[in-house]
């Protein structure tokens, strides 16, 4: 009882910070429920990534391989993950609330007939969990019944697990998949090309909104500041909807949730849906020409200014600071 099966999402063998956050949440939960953490890495060939994950505090890492797990597809992965959860008698199945985690875990929950709590932000001693509702305008304490429960973890809620020298044993297993029941086909992945840090990994995020007015202005006005600060670039829904930048830059209730050390909101008014995605950042800076913009209500430092003048100035000031 109390064992936690953590889905070790990887990107071609690399474990993003979100996976290490899921491991950390799993360790916290296992400690409170007197269980242990078993991490699972899935793919077609897996020796190296499983060994890497073994250093992050799990009691065991299971390397689950099958040709059907080559590309991520919900049907094959949910079959394999649910079967493993049953086999090891896990009480909890947990993953980071990434695009894959959000796609996969509800399907696993349905397969197990288990309840699921999405995007938990805290684990209470009494076995209840805290999760945001209404774009983060309400924090719900939820109770789950049944022998097995499914959870996704919000990436901003826990510190990433740290590696140690001691590695847990890695156990290789074949995945239990009924190939005849697979009905999904991977066609292509069109990656957004960027040399910048990922939004969910960066310690500084600079986001632009409708105030930037065009995709061209993101490039010529915002990006020099982003790069001068070594930051990840984000955007409001309005900017994404207008086609200024790709969708995976969207910060907010229905996009990515980030909590960097420094969040700079440029030309973003601050709709509640956007605030839901960044209000747990340590320091928030807002640059906006409208001094009534709601973003100023959450900003530690606000600058009422024309962004087309202020942003290049800021890039120059940051550069000066770096060289002083």
């Amino acid at each position, binding site marked *: 009882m109390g064992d936690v099966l953590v889905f070790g999402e990887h990107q071609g063998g690399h474990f993003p910070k979100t996976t290490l956050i899921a491991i950390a949440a799993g360790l916290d939960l296992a400690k409170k429920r007197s269980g242990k953490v078993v991490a699972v890495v899935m793919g077609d060939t897996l020796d190296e990534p499983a060994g890497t994950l073994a250093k992050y505090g799990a009691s065991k890492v299971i390397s689950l391989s099958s040709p059907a797990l080559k590309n991520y*597809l*919900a*049907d094959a992965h949910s079959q394999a993950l649910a079967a493993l959860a049953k086999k090891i008698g896990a009480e909890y199945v947990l993953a980071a609330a990434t*695009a*894959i985690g*959000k*796609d996969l875990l*509800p*399907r696993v*929950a*349905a*397969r197990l007939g*288990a*309840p*699921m*709590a999405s995007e938990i932000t805290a684990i209470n001693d009494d076995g209840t969990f805290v999760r945001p*509702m*209404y*774009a*983060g*305008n*309400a*924090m*719900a*304490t939820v*109770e*789950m*019944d049944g022998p097995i429960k499914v959870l996704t973890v919000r990436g901003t809620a826990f510190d990433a697990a740290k590696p140690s020298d001691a590695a847990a044993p890695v156990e290789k297993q074949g995945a239990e998949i009924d190939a005849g*029941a697979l*009905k*999904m*086909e*991977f*066609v*292509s*992945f*069109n*990656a*957004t090309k960027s040399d910048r840090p990922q939004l*969910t990994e960066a310690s*500084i995020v600079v986001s632009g909104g409708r105030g930037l007015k065009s995709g061209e202005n993101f490039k010529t006005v915002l990006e020099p500041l982003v790069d001068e600060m070594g930051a990840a670039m984000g955007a409001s829904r309005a900017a*994404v909807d207008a086609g200024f930048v790709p*969708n*995976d830059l969207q910060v907010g209730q*229905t996009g990515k949730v980030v909590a960097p*050390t*420094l969040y700079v909101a440029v030309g973003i008014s601050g709709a509640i*849906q956007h605030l839901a995605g960044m*209000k747990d950042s340590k320091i*928030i800076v807002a640059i906006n020409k409208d*001094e009534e913009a709601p973003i100023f*209500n*959450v900003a530690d*430092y*606000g*600058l009422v200014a024309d962004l087309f003048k*202020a942003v290049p*100035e800021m890039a120059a*000031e940051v550069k000066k*600071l770096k060289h002083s």
Partner: protein
Amino acid sequence: MKILVPIKRVPDPATTIRVLPDGSGIATDNVKWVINPFCEIAVEEALRIKEKQGNGEVVLVSIGQSTWQEQLRTGLAMGADRAILVITATTLDPLAIARVLAKVAADEKPDLIILGKQAIDDDSNQAGQMIAEMLGWPQATFASKVEIGADKISVTREVDGGLETIAFKAPGVITTDLRLNEPRYASLPGIMKARKKELKEIPAESLGVDLAPKLKVKTLAAPPKRQAGRKVASVEELVQVLHTEAKVI
């Protein structure tokens, strides 16, 4: 092609949400109720597929009380053909919601189920994936483009780091993301016509599925409020305070 579109009634996204002092829920006295924005996108996509193919049927389904008819009528006014309202007085958890919708789908036998990726009230993002599993169907979540081919349906999905395309043969489940389309407004003739369209109520208990909630909200609390900081006078001052006071650059 027959398309089933589950829709949910939620507070208008522009509403300021206030948690009741006793933590039992949110204040609903001044709330305007609307179709969940992602569900509206689902209705629109189903209508576009039907219009493009020149035939087919779009069936709406919702779960709630009789007052929820209003949102179904709005969907009918947009152009859906008929609607089903599964009546229940209790709050169902996502698993029970999915069981109800999977049972309705088993009875209706649609070629596609299109629904919102998440409802903006409980923000769970679970129902579509659960329905797909219960029916043994493929799923394409977070869709930004849907193409109905002669043989296969291909869906472009908004995922971390880019866009992914997957394909499947009908029947299947698609959940909508924001960029899929711009939902239409109901026209006046549409609203007139909607009054005469079939809207059938069925009691949830008659479906013979397990409705007992396994996920319960015990209490709600307002989130910690962030204090507004201060305004700075210039870019120079801003960079200085970030360096010396906040120590973040």
